[in-house]
């Protein structure tokens, strides 16, 4: 995907450069908005980006033309030969129909369906963040029922590990951290937020209800009401109160509507900035963004010291019509971290809240944020954004990329935008269908995930024999592999080795899985582990878990990851036969052939191939009986360092 984009942009920039000189004379005129702090935008860059868009379209057309022959030659879709499930083409669901039709139309050949082994490991990691145990693998392979994949999905969705994994995910999305560059929630506030997310998932609370509770939250104490901590994250100290309203508005738009451009628009009109990026954004004004931020204007965010007379620690209260927050959004600033907010001639000094996509404001007597929560969760864009964020978690690539850069004017497949604009999602029908299903299910997160992982497109193999065109990635014709997240690697090493870990988290007690950490920074506390100061924390950090503030989680690979998997004690001690209750301590007594199977099944969640078995046996038997233990340790260490251990494929 990345390579594809880069090539596109190169051509794009070349085209755009040609027009740059001609257009540069107009730049000043086109800067219709005050443009100060924001170091992001410049009209020239928008033009480059526009070029990028057009180039990408050209590339897609060329690709499609070149493969017309392949398309006509393409036979029926591969049937699921090695699995009991979904063998007949007729069992394709509507989502699969849409996606496979798009592949066929573009002449893209999908990969083979996954084997049972591949599917079990993939879906267990994706839904629960764990690898399957040997017992789960055996049971699944021995299950002859035609619906065993669906049954597995139900078991996983009902497991406590599902709650852990998605509590971590929504903690990332909602930015739950004890401390960011701007805001301190203290561990107590973070824990409360963590508990709120976790309880919501345990109850499978409808996602629109979660959103309403976060957006409309009011209460006196963020240590006791976890949901208050979402809006507390928008606090901007040291400036006018509008800085905070704007931050809360931008966070809300990004999180629940997938529209990060609201952040831009709170500084300046879209015209002259977003012209080439967003059909919606280019005509959106800063005034409209103020109307959106206006829903937060009567929200007082206050620090309340836990002990009177001592500034620290404190919790947050979020109250309506309190303190300085008793008026509508006021245009009266000349300082702060956004350009001055002043009325234009003839404009009133205050801005009443209006939801930009419906034109509605609060009902009489309705608290502003209750109205906003109502508007957002009844906006179809809310469903689209949620579905797209989650789709990316399962496929590595959203229909809209990046998933927080939605252009709401280019979504509806029944009303495509006028030329030269195109619909934004890579497959608008699929996104629309999933979002509709999500709404129909009552915003049921489990139902959405069920639909995704039971689809045939999710169950396509990641393996290709070569000759893959990266431009085909966006058809989801091949499953994209991903490196396991930091917590998943940590927990996979525990599952595989049987050697556990135990961490004490202040206020939460003992946790045994990294996926249960309430946040991603400084976990576990660097001096609270049994293998040297900070070792486990450093190990987890190597896998780029981010800090939920200015460092995003990443699934990139890196040099420290390789060094740690090769040499870190967290790995090495789990490869030793002398570690009590470890995999080898328990299985060294098995005959060679069985031992090899045990290692593969426990670590890689699959059986060895014949070639692997032969190589492993040769290693195990080399150097005589005195070498067997060391040979087994070598093998186990190798498996921990294998690509198919550290990746989900």
């Amino acid at each position, binding site marked *: 995907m990345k*390579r594809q984009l*880069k090539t596109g*942009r*190169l051509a*794009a*920039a*070349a085209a755009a*450069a040609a027009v740059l000189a001609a257009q540069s004379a107009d730049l*000043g005129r086109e*800067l219709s908005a005050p*443009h100060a*702090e924001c*170091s*992001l935008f*410049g009209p*020239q*860059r928008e033009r*480059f*980006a526009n070029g990028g*868009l057009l180039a990408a379209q050209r590339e897609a057309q060329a690709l499609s033309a070149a493969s017309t022959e392949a398309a006509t030659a393409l036979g029926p879709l591969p049937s699921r030969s090695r699995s009991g499930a979904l063998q007949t083409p007729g069992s394709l669901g509507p989502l699969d129909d849409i996606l496979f039709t798009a592949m066929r139309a573009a002449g893209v050949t999908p990969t083979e369906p996954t084997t049972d082994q591949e599917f079990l490991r993939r879906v267990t990691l994706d839904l629960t963040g764990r690898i399957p145990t040997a017992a789960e693998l055996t049971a699944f392979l021995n299950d002859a029922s035609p619906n065993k994949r669906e049954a597995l999905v139900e078991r996983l969705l009902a497991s406590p590990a599902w709650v852990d994994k998605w509590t971590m995910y929504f903690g990332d999305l909602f930015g739950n951290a004890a401390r960011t*560059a*701007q805001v301190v929630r203290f561990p107590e506030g973070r824990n409360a937020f963590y508990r709120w997310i976790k309880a919501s998932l345990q109850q499978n609370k409808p996602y629109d209800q979660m959103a309403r509770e976060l957006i409309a939250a009011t209460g006196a104490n963020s240590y006791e009401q976890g949901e208050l901590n979402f809006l507390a994250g928008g606090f*901007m*100290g*040291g*400036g006018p109160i509008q*800085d905070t309203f704007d931050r809360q508005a931008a966070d809300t738009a990004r999180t629940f509507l997938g529209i*990060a451009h609201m952040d831009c628009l709170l500084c300046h009109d879209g015209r002259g900035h977003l012209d080439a*990026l967003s059909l919606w954004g280019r005509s959106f004004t800063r005034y409209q963004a103020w109307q959106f931020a206006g829903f937060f204007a009567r929200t007082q965010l206050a620090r309340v010291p836990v002990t009177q007379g001592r500034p620290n620690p404190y919790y947050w209260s979020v109250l309506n019509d309190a303190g300085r927050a008793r008026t509508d959004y006021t245009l009266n600033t000349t300082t702060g*971290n*956004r*350009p*001055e907010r002043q009325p234009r001639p003839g404009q009133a000094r205050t801005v009443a809240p209006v939801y930009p996509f419906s034109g509605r404001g609060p009902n009489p007597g309705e608290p502003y944020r209750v109205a906003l929560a109502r508007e957002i969760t009844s906006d179809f864009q809310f469903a689209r954004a949620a579905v797209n964020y989650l789709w990316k978690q399962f496929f590595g690539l959203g229909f809209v990329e*990046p998933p927080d850069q939605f252009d709401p004017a280019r979504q509806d497949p029944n009303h495509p935008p006028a030329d030269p604009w195109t619909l934004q999602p890579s497959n608008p029908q699929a996104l629309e269908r999933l979002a509709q299903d999500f709404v129909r299910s009552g915003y049921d997160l489990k139902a959405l995930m069920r639909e995704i992982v039971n689809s045939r497109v999710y169950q396509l193999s*990641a*393996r290709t024999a070569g000759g893959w065109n990266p431009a085909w990635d966006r058809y989801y014709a091949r499953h994209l592999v*991903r490196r396991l997240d930091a917590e998943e690697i940590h927990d996979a090493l525990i599952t595989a080795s049987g050697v556990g870990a135990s961490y004490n988290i202040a206020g939460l007690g003992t946790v045994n899985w990294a996926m249960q950490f309430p946040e991603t920074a400084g976990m576990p506390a660097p001096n609270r582990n049994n293998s040297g100061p900070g070792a486990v924390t450093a190990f987890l*950090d190597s896998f780029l878990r981010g800090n939920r503030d*200015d*460092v995003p989680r*990443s*699934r*990139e*690979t*890196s*040099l*420290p990851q*390789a*060094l740690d998997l*090769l*040499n870190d004690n967290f790995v090495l001690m789990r490869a030793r036969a002398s570690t009590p209750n470890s995999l080898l301590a328990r299985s060294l007594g098995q005959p060679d052939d069985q031992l090899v199977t045990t290692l593969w099944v426990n670590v890689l969640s699959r059986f060895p191939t014949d070639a*692997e078995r032969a*190589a492993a046996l040769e290693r195990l038997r080399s150097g005589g009986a005195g070498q067997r233990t*060391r040979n087994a340790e070598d*093998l186990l260490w*190798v498996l921990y*360092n294998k*690509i198919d251990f550290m*990746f989900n*494929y």
Partner: protein
Amino acid sequence: MNEREKFERLIARRPAAHAPLFFERPHLSRRRFFRVLGAGVSGYYVGAPLRGGEAVWSAGATPQNKAKNVIFILLSGAMSQIDTFDFKNVAGVTPASFAPESAGDIGLFPTGLFPKLKDHLAELAIVRSMRAYALVHGLARTWVQIGRNPTSALGAVAPNLGSVVALELEPQRQPSQVFPTFLALNSDDAAGPGYFSAKYAPFKVQPLATGLRNTSSAAAGGPGVFADRVNLLHLLDDPLRVQSPFGKSAEDMDSFYTQARAMVDHPAVAQAFGFSTADSQRYGNSAFGNACLLAKQVLAARQGTRYIQITLGGWDMHQDIYDPGELPALSKTLDDGLAALLGDLKSAGLLSETLIVMQGEFGRTVGPLSAGDNGRDHFLQQFVVFAGGGVRGGRAIGRTDATGAFVEDYGWSRNREPHPEDVEATIYSALGIDWTKIRYDDPFGRGFEYVPYAKDDVYGPINELWA
């Protein structure tokens, strides 16, 4: 009266009560922005693809290209400038033990705080007209590391200066070199690679006498066992690593394994990242001293490291700043480490090719200490120390007034206060990097300017350092 004058009058009236003034920048820079925009844009398009085919645009600046390496020392917490590198003797306030002595163009220098640096003043160029944009620690600290406003939308994906350097200088790496290009010492919270690939991320190290974490095969059983295991790994895993059926990310991981394997047990790794007690003592026997020691050893090894960030925290002295355990103690740590670093780099012939940049995230209040707390609070006026890399030392650039609160002479051709964006441009220029470059591979698809607005010449390097 314009915004800027208003702001400064406010500061003058309430020198210790400026914390609520979060930013003062928009108005000045906006005007300048429009002015330069009005002049039109002249630039050229660099058609040649870089690694991976990214497109770039550049205004075609001519960098100084005088340095090969950079050591960026972040005085986290913000050091008091008028007690140190912009020394002002406040009658009845400044302790006599600071022992200021006149040092040529640098003027008064507190030899009591920095008895060792006193002998290195000929290497130092102190920019005293520097001014921060924000007075919030976390924000300003990130600001100086990424060279732009972190709360701007691109701030969230902007790479550390060191990551830009790592990417730019990658073509200069030799195949035999095994160290990462960008090393961050005592900087666990260093700004990351932003949207750049993880291979340009700061390689974060806490110096240990025993060397670099997880680069010894000893725990695995020694080099023999390690090599044996790696061979077995390739035997079993190459089908997934080489021309991987899983695609590029698996192949990328394999290339990191190749890099890691080259580092494990490499004598240069142990030599450069471990250290002796005697050397550590010579650098002051502190975490900062050890980082300086490592910086010198790593550069001397010439194994591909080009940008080193070192953090020395603890300067946020709101209370009892002159207590022996506060400014005097931390200054000694700095003095011991930095003086030894300058001395060693010089005698190794490395100083002339290594630019050292040292600054806090902002400055501290001037004049009398804060009532009751006896400390100094946050203040926008600050300093930056430059040394090495061909910089002409023994000088101050820019001059503040008698109190140290305001600039009297910018000492700079741009005739304004330098800001973090200008320091960023200076660093790129020193390393031969065109600071006006814009890359079109950012996730927003809008173009990432190395230095914001540099293409319009809003920000730019302090060339006076080399004059």
